[in-house]
């Protein structure tokens, strides 16, 4: 079962659909970045992360990292910055949640086998 930190609520799914509609390409851009980070990170965790809870912790930290990377580099934040941060968080959580089963299979399933 997917960690509650990653799982989107029905309202959040609706918000994600609105983001997809109103900002074409934004979801794909952030999903691509999540995928790239996962490609870099997951192979290094083989044998180190061996539980589903451990995978959830990794994914949660990865989401936080994406949001931090996308944070404005200047002092203070505008409403637009805040909105981008919210959208980035939502998209990254969804991307991580969708990737979760495959990563559990690779890391936890591999240990079981």
């Amino acid at each position, binding site marked *: 079962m997917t960690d509650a930190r990653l799982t989107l*609520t029905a*309202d*959040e799914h*609706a*918000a994600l*659909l*609105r*983001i*997809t*509609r*109103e*900002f*074409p*390409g*934004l979801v*794909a*851009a*952030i999903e*691509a*970045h999540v995928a790239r980070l996962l490609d870099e990170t997951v192979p290094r965790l083989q044998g180190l992360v061996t539980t589903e809870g451990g995978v959830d912790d990794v994914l949660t930290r990865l989401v936080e990292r*994406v*949001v931090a*990377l*996308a*944070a*404005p*580099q200047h002092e203070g*934040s505008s*409403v*637009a*910055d*805040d*909105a*981008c*941060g*919210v*959208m*980035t*968080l*939502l998209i990254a*959580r969804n991307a991580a949640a969708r990737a979760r089963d495959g990563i559990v299979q690779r890391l936890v399933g591999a240990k079981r086998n």
Partner: protein
Amino acid sequence: MMVGIGRNGPAVLAGGSLLLAALWAGVASGETLAPTNGRLTVTLPGLSWVVTLDAPGFELEADETHSDGRGRYLHAVNRQTDVILSVRLERSSTGRSARACREAAWAALRARSPFQMHDVRTSERGRLAVLEYHVPEFRGLAVRQKHLNAFLGKDDVCVDMHLSKVRFSPEDGRLFDELLGSVKLIERLGL
């Protein structure tokens, strides 16, 4: 920076310039053919014409009609090529040309896009008015994303077809060209 998601979605958006329109009812009108045969067909209630394009390999992820019937939005993804396609039909109060549709869309895009757009170009391909740009990165995240909007204008309707692809390379241009080359505006007989 505040980042948090409440149960009612990203409420922070409501007061800002990035206000998300919540006018779409998500009502399927049944007038769109899922691209099972590779051809996407879309129209609006009451129109005497349809727009078709060949989109083999695309999965239709959203098909929403505005509750007043004046707008339509489709979203489809090709997971083999990573090309994302959306088609938007919107009625306006006056007649629109393809160029006028592009100008209006470009003005809206400049005002509220979260992206920094590079290499912005406009061109005409037949009756399509085209707008292209690159997004090398989004707030420090490398994405190398190409965007292309192709506009049609007929009667009081603007048709906006948007294509995008992350990790875009010059060879990927043909994917966009093939889609654009297949766009047809067809009159419906009997209407």
